[in-house]
């Protein structure tokens, strides 16, 4: 069979960092094949695809498309060669309609200069119908759902007649149903002869959709198999370089009973709203335990995070830390008292993307690094270097943190917050979007903190994570606590039981946390 695509010996070195993102990578793709390109965060998958799409210039290597050697220097040229890419972050103009977005750069003309708006609607509508998408060509993109926006991105590439379609982590932002319908679309495309490359690090997606799986680690291709000839364990081992499990070594849980942080009947009611966001929530976080908060989105986990972080004032009740009422304190005051907090939104809340790694690390402790009001470069440098080493962050102190991968950004935030912590620490969705190795790293740190006697509060919508690391679990439903699970009960609880609590089908009598 003729290869749709053949990449040989691709090398890409980022000059600013000296990082060898691709180190002699080979990749072939057959016509009508669905290939999953798997690997941890920072393995070089996205770089390889950017080289293919003309967004990055390789330092060495050759590419041939449909048997002909080519050099791809821009996305426009990639499109001409029949290569299209759907980026992880949408490249859509919200103010334009679907048709205007799809035709951007390749607009149908009326006469010599005039944009044929109607012609665009018709042409795009034809593509939409041919592939049975469910979007309206004349709708404003800003009014679409995330799943529909992704369809627009795919239509954009199909309008350009691509034979090879690259999708960078297409499922990251989709709901279960949207993923299901995306997969149906992708299979139909493959049947029509389109070759697909999906970048992903989710094992179950690889087995669900792909014909072939190629695995990268640290810039190199480490495996390439027909999907039905490998199992998840093998793929995972190749991605990681070793076999892993979610279970973390830890000391047995000895309920040390001194509460560090206590919520007494805390409610949050916003003006003009009937139903409180938090409704009479009481619990105590004790030293030496990981207290997990589980719940379905919209049931109070996010509100709890905002209250703990000091962003959202409470309407009634009290929050007590070391016998002092801290209900009225804002973030700044709370942090002065030792609040350590790893927020769910690590890009907007947790870090300043344009600031350097160093600056992000010391932002909260400036006074320790100044003498007579002047920053002490050497001291900051040494501090940063030692933290980067301890937390095995791939990056240098002077890089803007936004240029790091998601996992490495999270490690920097962890480093800062763990340095800041005194007796309690809040983690909200700490492993969201992270690969297995980075997640494991986070869990190990959490357990380490707990073993040192910290009160660890873990807010997470990931049930596996909650059950794997928590010593006690509080389940939230519609802003109230519906269940508290610990010891034997927690060890025996099934996911079905948890689901029943989280969906409000079942409730403990007078749960007390």
């Amino acid at each position, binding site marked *: 069979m003729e290869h749709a695509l053949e990449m040989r010996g691709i090398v890409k070195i980022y000059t600013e960092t000296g990082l060898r993102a691709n180190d002699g990578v080979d990749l072939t793709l057959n016509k009508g094949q669905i290939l999953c390109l798997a690997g941890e965060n920072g393995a070089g998958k996205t770089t390889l695809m950017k080289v293919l799409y*003309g*967004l990055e210039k390789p330092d060495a290597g050759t590419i041939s498309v449909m048997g002909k050697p080519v050099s791809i220097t*821009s*996305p*426009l*040229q*990639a*499109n001409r060669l029949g290569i299209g*890419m759907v*980026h992880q*972050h949408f*490249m*859509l*103009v*919200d*103010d*334009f309609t679907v048709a*205007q*977005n799809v035709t*951007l*750069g390749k*607009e149908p*003309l009326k006469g010599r*200069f*005039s*944009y044929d*708006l109607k012609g665009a609607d018709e042409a795009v509508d034809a593509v939409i119908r041919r592939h049975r998408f469910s979007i309206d060509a004349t709708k404003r993109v800003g009014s679409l759902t995330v799943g529909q926006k992704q369809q627009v991105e795919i239509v954009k590439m199909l309008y350009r007649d691509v034979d090879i379609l690259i999708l960078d982590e297409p499922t990251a932002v989709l709901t279960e149903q949207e993923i299901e319908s995306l997969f149906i679309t992708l299979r139909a495309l493959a049947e029509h002869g389109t070759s697909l490359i999906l970048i992903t690090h989710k094992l179950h997606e690889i087995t669900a959709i792909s014909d072939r799986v190629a695995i990268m680690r640290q810039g190199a291709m480490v495996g390439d198999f027909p999907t039905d000839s490998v199992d998840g364990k093998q793929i995972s081992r190749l991605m990681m370089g070793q076999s892993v499990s979610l279970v973390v070594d830890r000391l047995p849980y000895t309920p040390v009973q001194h509460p560090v942080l206590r919520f007494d009947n805390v409610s949050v009611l916003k003006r003009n709203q009937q139903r409180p966001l938090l409704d009479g929530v009481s619990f105590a976080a004790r030293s030496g335990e990981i207290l997990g908060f589980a719940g379905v989105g919209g049931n109070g986990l996010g509100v709890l995070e905002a209250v703990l972080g000091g962003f959202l004032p409470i309407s009634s009740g009290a929050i007590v830390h070391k016998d002092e009422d801290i209900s009225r304190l804002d973030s700044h005051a709370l942090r002065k008292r030792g609040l350590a907090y790893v927020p769910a939104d690590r890009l907007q809340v947790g870090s300043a993307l344009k600031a350097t790694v160093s600056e992000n690390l010391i932002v909260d402790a400036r006074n320790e690094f100044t003498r007579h009001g002047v920053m002490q470069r050497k001291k900051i440098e040494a501090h940063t270097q030692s933290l980067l080493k301890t937390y095995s962050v791939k990056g240098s102190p002077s890089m803007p943190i936004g240029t790091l991968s998601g996992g490495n950004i999270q490690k920097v935030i962890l480093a800062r917050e763990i340095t800041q912590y005194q007796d309690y620490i809040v983690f909200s969705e700490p492993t969201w979007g992270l690969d297995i190795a980075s997640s494991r790293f986070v869990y190990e740190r959490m357990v380490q903190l707990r073993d040192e006697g910290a009160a660890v509060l873990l807010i997470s919508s990931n049930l596996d994570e909650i059950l794997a690391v928590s010593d006690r679990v509080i389940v939230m439903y519609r802003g109230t606590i519906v269940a508290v699970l610990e010891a034997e009960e927690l060890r025996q609880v099934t996911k079905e039981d948890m689901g029943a609590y989280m969906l409000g089908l079942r409730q403990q009598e007078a749960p007390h946390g």
Partner: protein
Amino acid sequence: MNPVAIPVLHSAVAIMTPLLLASMGGLFTELSGMLNIALEGLMLMGAFASIVFTHFTGNMVVGIALGVLASMLLAAILGTVTLHLKSNVFITALAANLFASGLTVVLSFKLFGNKGVVVFNDIGRLPRLDIPALAKIPVFGDIFIGHNIFVYLSWVLLALCAWVLYRTPFGFRLRATGIHEQAMVSLGMRPSRYRFIAFLVSGFTCALGGAMLTLNLGAFVPNITSGKGWIALVVIFLGQKKPIGLLFAALVFGFADAFSNYAQGAWNVPADFILAIPYVFTLVAMVLFSIYTSRKNRVE
């Protein structure tokens, strides 16, 4: 209708024209995603070069054309430094303003030995246009006829501007550049190309706005634009970044100016107060506008 109102409105239409012209070009740079504060300098460049070249060539059309070229050259330098040498647009545009302000005075001194007002007696009046069909309409006719050609040219250009922005591929790409630059890059288009053209367009229309000021007066006065380029920026925002909005916003300022001119003659109030009217007006308009938009956003 009040007999005073018609002359005031008539002069408002004339006064708004340089603002409308400058804001049109500024709209292009604004929509491409850049705050172009050099409108003032570009206008001044066009104002000076147009009248000087008209004086030396003896031909007003050639003079205006060369004036437009001079302003576009400054815009091209601004575009190159900003887009290709990646300097901050705010700083370079500020430099362009200072440069234009200084250069015009220096050249005026070199050429005419005068750092102040230079009067050109050899320059004919700007041609005026009387459209008989318009003249027959009561009130409306009285307000809109008998203006110089720049006034009518600005309306034609405004229509052209709207067509380019909303009915051509170029317009869509320009706006896409301003809204989501990466979307353009991902489709293989260069945002800097569209921004550069936007700079040139702003040089073009600002020069026309400036040319109208000097040619109408038959003289060059140092810093004759006196903040009109800055007010044109306000016009863009007040006009909600839409071509038709520019027309209304410019008219509002034209009226404020015309009114203060009238009041100076008619009322017994210190001139300084009256001359401040347009600026007070700008301030009030901006405050009202920001209240309006924040209300609107809250509803959404």
